[in-house]
């Protein structure tokens, strides 16, 4: 995926206002199946996989024994097997980790190179796919997944994405990339703008979604990363449970917050967050093409995490005023998948 095709801002705004398409074939895709598959995945993550119904997906994290996040992933249940989508850079590490924990006789198959993946994102995504695939998707629930055998081949269609907008992620089950390319071209001609890595990053940041390696790493637990909502409190044994449980009971020391600039400048990774003395650090920052100002995600000590709090960001030696906000950064009545439907 290039950084951009026509321009980061234009691509970003196409996704917020109409529809954009991303080639996300680099993302890791695993099929987990076999008798013990459900118990195996349930043991690997703090979320409840046993209760995940067929045709549904969930966002969760793989944790190590100390509760540190190995990767953030989506698990989809497809009848009696699972599709697990992981970060490209973590694929080998995840496979090794999963294999080392597989005392459940689950079968793990890496289908990354035997398939392709496209993300069609934006308020017009279901209309664009209706035109392209001839199937009605507007009534599908968010985080649901369906399998379709179409003329173009076998497709998995999930109503998920990494932009904050409504949209779909498509897995094209074929080792012939020209099939995905044909679909890519078809979707573009149905009024969808090709989007690159730059817009993918600005979109996910505006939505307040995490980027592994920047906002998350194996030293941070889901509690520390303000992702406690993925932890199922009622759950029995799983990897990292001891540490995560005890952190759930005590208050988290640090919190992941959104930062919106008041002054001029773009907060970037590793810039310090100050309130007199240093209270935290930026982990991801960019210029928001929608808000036309600098936005960021960072970690601050928890007593400084309330929305509205004024702070300063050290941008290359200059202290620039900013404030703590609760992402997403955009007005949710106007943008994002929860927006009031356009007519």
């Amino acid at each position, binding site marked *: 995926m290039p950084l951009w095709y026509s*321009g980061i801002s234009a691509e970003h705004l196409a996704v917020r206002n109409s529809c954009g398409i991303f080639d996300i074939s680099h993302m890791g895709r695993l099929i987990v199946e076999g008798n013990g598959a459900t118990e195996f995945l349930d043991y690997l993550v703090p979320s409840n996989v046993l209760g995940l119904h067929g045709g549904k997906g969930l966002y969760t994290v793989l944790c190590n024994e100390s509760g540190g996040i190995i990767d953030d992933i989506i698990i989809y249940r497809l009848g009696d097997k699972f599709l697990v989508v992981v970060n490209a850079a973590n694929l080998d590490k995840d496979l090794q980790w999963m294999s080392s924990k597989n005392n459940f006789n689950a079968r793990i198959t890496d289908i990354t190179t035997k398939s392709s993946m496209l993300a069609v994102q934006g308020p017009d995504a279901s209309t664009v796919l209706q035109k392209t695939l001839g199937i009605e998707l507007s009534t599908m629930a968010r985080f649901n997944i369906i399998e379709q055998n179409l003329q173009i081949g076998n497709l998995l269609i999930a109503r998920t994405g990494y932009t904050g907008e409504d949209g779909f992620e498509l897995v094209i089950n074929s080792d012939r990339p020209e099939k995905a390319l044909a679909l890519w071209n078809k979707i573009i001609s149905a009024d969808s703008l090709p989007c690159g890595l730059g817009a993918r990053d600005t979109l996910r940041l505006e939505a307040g979604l995490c980027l592994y*390696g920047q906002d998350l790493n194996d030293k941070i637990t889901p509690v520390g990363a303000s992702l406690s909502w993925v932890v199922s409190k009622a759950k029995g044994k799983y990897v990292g449970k001891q540490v995560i449980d005890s952190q759930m009971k005590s208050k988290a020391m640090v919190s992941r917050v959104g930062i919106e600039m008041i002054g001029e400048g773009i907060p970037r990774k590793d810039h310090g967050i100050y309130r007199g003395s240093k209270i935290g650090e930026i982990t991801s920052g960019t210029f928001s093409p929608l808000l036309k100002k600098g936005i960021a995600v960072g970690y601050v000590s928890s007593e400084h995490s309330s929305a509205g709090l004024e702070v300063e960001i050290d941008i*290359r030696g200059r202290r620039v005023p900013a404030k703590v906000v609760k992402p997403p950064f955009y007005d949710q009545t106007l943008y994002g998948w929860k927006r009031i439907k356009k007519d």
Partner: protein
Amino acid sequence: MEANQEGLITLQMSSGQALKYEVRDDLLYTKEHEWAKILNETRVLVGITDYAAKLLHEVVYVSLAIVNSEVNHMQSLGTVESVKAVSDIFSPISGKVVKINEKLATHPELVNNSPYDVGWLVEIDAKNLLAEKGKLMSAKEYSSFIEKL
């Protein structure tokens, strides 16, 4: 969920996009991609090249040395910041800043749209123009320099 981009502007080269860069014959160039236009024996207009502007992509802030400040050959003259990266600007010529392009405060995109004309950065009253001119590249030299990058 990919690795981030700050400073990695050269990644763009691997995208397979065939970008064309304008190089003007009447300008002198630095290896840091600034241009200098000799206006007369002492006055020099400075900006960043089309190549730099295209690599930076979508400039959103331009921060320049203030009027009357002294700048030195290949020392910082300010920064240009785009959605993806921050880049230092180096002064091709030593001297005093006599004018800055005020339009860039509200229209930083002029650096992308018109790097050699409306998107100029500063005007310098040069103090050592004759000697320093020789340290800069001609259009021909700069063209072959960027072709090899």
